[in-house]
Each structure stands twice: as structure tokens, then as C-alpha cells.
């Protein structure tokens, strides 16, 4: 199966409350490898839009710290992406 692994990678959800918060996400995307799930790219991010993106284990800590520092509310939708990938196949062969 898939060679690339996603151990402990996270998917975060947040809703930037204003332009300043939207810009913080855009800044984070310049310095980190964010994989946008919704919307599909950082340039679509605007205030009051729900934003989902994937972050690597390595970058997660500093990204969460930045969000905390800026008092940005977020939710961790997926804590360990690799686990979730494996859990997709939850129907046993008939």
C-alpha cells in the first residue's frame, strides 16, 4: 500500500474571525507546508470561512503555538492521519 506515511500528522479546523486572522493563516502557509483540504488553496482563505488543513508532525507544534499566541480558536479534526487512513478500510472482505 501507499509508501508515504502520515504518522501523527494532523488536520486542523479553524474559522478566522477577521482579516488579521486570515492573514495569520496565509503567513503560516508561507513558512510551513500546509495541505489545504478546504478551501483547496490558501488564496481562497477569507474571514469567517471554515478552513481545514493538514500539517506535518514536525510543524504542528509551532503552528499550534502561533494560533494560541494569536488567540485563534481551532479544532483538531484528525490527530493522527495515518491512523485515519487505515481506519478507512473498516469493512472486512466478504
Amino acid at each position, binding site marked *: *500500500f*501507499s*509508501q*508515504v506515511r*502520515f504518522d501523527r500528522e494532523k*488536520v486542523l*479546523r479553524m474559522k478566522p474571525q477577521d482579516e488579521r486572522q486570515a492573514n495569520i493563516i496565509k503567513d503560516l502557509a508561507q513558512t510551513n507546508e500546509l*495541505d*489545504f*483540504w*478546504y*478551501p*483547496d*488553496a490558501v*488564496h*481562497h482563505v477569507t474571514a469567517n*470561512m*471554515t478552513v*481545514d488543513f*493538514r500539517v506535518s508532525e514536525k510543524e504542528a507544534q509551532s503552528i499550534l503555538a502561533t494560533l494560541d499566541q494569536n488567540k485563534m480558536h481551532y479544532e483538531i*479534526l*484528525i490527530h493522527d*492521519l495515518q491512523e*485515519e*487512513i487505515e*481506519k*478507512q*478500510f*473498516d*469493512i472486512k*472482505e*466478504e
Partner: protein
Amino acid sequence: SPGRHSYAKYNNWDKIVAWTEKMMNKRPEIVSRIKIGATAEDNPLYILKIGGKDESKKAIFMDCGIHAREWVSPAFCQWFVYQATKTYGRNKIMTKLLDRMNFYVLPVFNVDGYIWTWTKNRMWRKNRSKNQNSKCIGTDLNRNFNVSWNAFPETKNPCSPLYRGPAPESEKETKAVTDFIRRNLKSIKAYITVHSYSQMLLFPYGYTPEMPPTYKDLNKVAKIGTDVLSTRYETRYIYGPIASTIYPTSGSSLDWAYDLGIKHTFAFELRDKGRFGFLLPESRLKSTCKETMLAVKFIAKYILRHAS
């Protein structure tokens, strides 16, 4: 042998190919397989034509799997073919639909990308074509259509997940689909493209905030479509034009098909709302497909009655 195909599970490309052949052999009177081209990596692009030999009937074109990691989408196209063939002759509505119209179903649009998600990287989105003067691979096929293709500067970078390609229809997959639709434009009355996730039913436009000329009609169909979809499991979808309902896009297949003259074009963003995102568990596949089937059947009935 590619192993056993299952509608309750995700199927890899080899299983899907074998399944297309099986469907064709099982119901030759209503199913035929058309090879419309090949991908960048020389995999075949197959369409299943459901509904008999008459080319002059109204038709609906439906594609799945334009974005590689959206696995629920190809699963729905397989489900649709299965249900259509299984219920033809038994279910009054499906029998009427298939007697009077054809469905062209492309179960996997982005074949190379789909294979890549199974073998190398589950999170891959684009196709797998090589880009000149760049180490980055792949084009977002849903930015490669010839409609407002040049509008968004963010899609010019080959390393962007939204890279639009070096020219409109530069990708073999896009070209094969657009050529097929243009060849059958007289009969194709509706275009449906299936994506995930976020539970939406979208219609043009994405490239402009302006409303399409047939806005009222599209809005009505989308409203009833989402209402019908929710009747089975109370799954709530929102609906509306792409630009204001999701976000502005350029080069999308939906806008292209609409501007080409297909006046009923819709995009489904299937389940879920983000709990699983692109990783919807197989245990939720059947319910997702069943409710979506209701909406697609409604659209087909509407086309049969109203499209000229």
C-alpha cells in the same frame, strides 16, 4: 486476478477496470464500454454508456474522480452503474430513464492520480503529468478546462496544488473528455461532476460572481435535488453557484460545460463535513451513495421532462 470488486469497499484501479468489463459482459443490452483516450501514463480512460444503442436519445454525462484523493467519488460512479443496471426492468423510474436516455459514466477521470493515491501517496490531488522546467509533477485537471483559464495568477506555479497546466486542455485526460463531450454535444443535456467533501450541490458560475442566464432553473433543480437527497438519512447539503457557495474558481469543468451549451451542469461535493474529510470510512459508503443516487435520479427525471 485483481481481486474481488465490492460496492461496499474502495476499489483500486485494477479492480475498477475488471469491473467495467464485467458490467459490459453482464448486461450487454444496456451497457457498453467506450475508450475515449489514454492518460499521461498510458492508462485507458473508459466511459460506461448505460441505456442502449440509440445515439439520438437525450444523455447525461457524469464524471467521478477528477481529484485523485477524493475516493468516495469513483465509489459513487460505480454504485450508480450498479444500481442502474440492477433496477432496470424492475424499478419503474429507472426503466423509464434508461429507455429514454443514455448515461455516459466516467468512473475515474484522473486515473494516474488515483493509482498514485493507492500506491504512493494517499493525499495526492493532481494528475501525474510532467511539467516542463519544473521538478513538480501534476496538473489540477479541474483547472485545466478552457474557461477563464487565464484568470487566477495563483494557479500558474507548477508546484501549486491548483496548477492549471501550460495551456487549456493541455492534459490528455481533459482533452479526451472535452473531445468526447463536444462530439456528443447534441445529445448531452446535463453534465454532473462528483467530488468530495463538504456536502454541497453546486452550479455555475465559479469564474465570476455573476449569475448564469438560467440561474432560476438551476437553483430550483439544486434545491429540490438537495431536499430529495436529505430524505433518506437527513444529510444536509447546501446549494448555489460555485463562486459564492464554495469559492471562486477558474478553468473548472462545470463552467466549461455550461458555456459550451449544456444548460444543466452540477457538481456534487459529497460527504462529509470534515470529520473524515477525504478519508470517509467504507462503512459510510453505501449510505452516501444511496442518498446521492436519489438526487442524481431526480436531476435525470427533470432533464427528461424539461430539457430540450
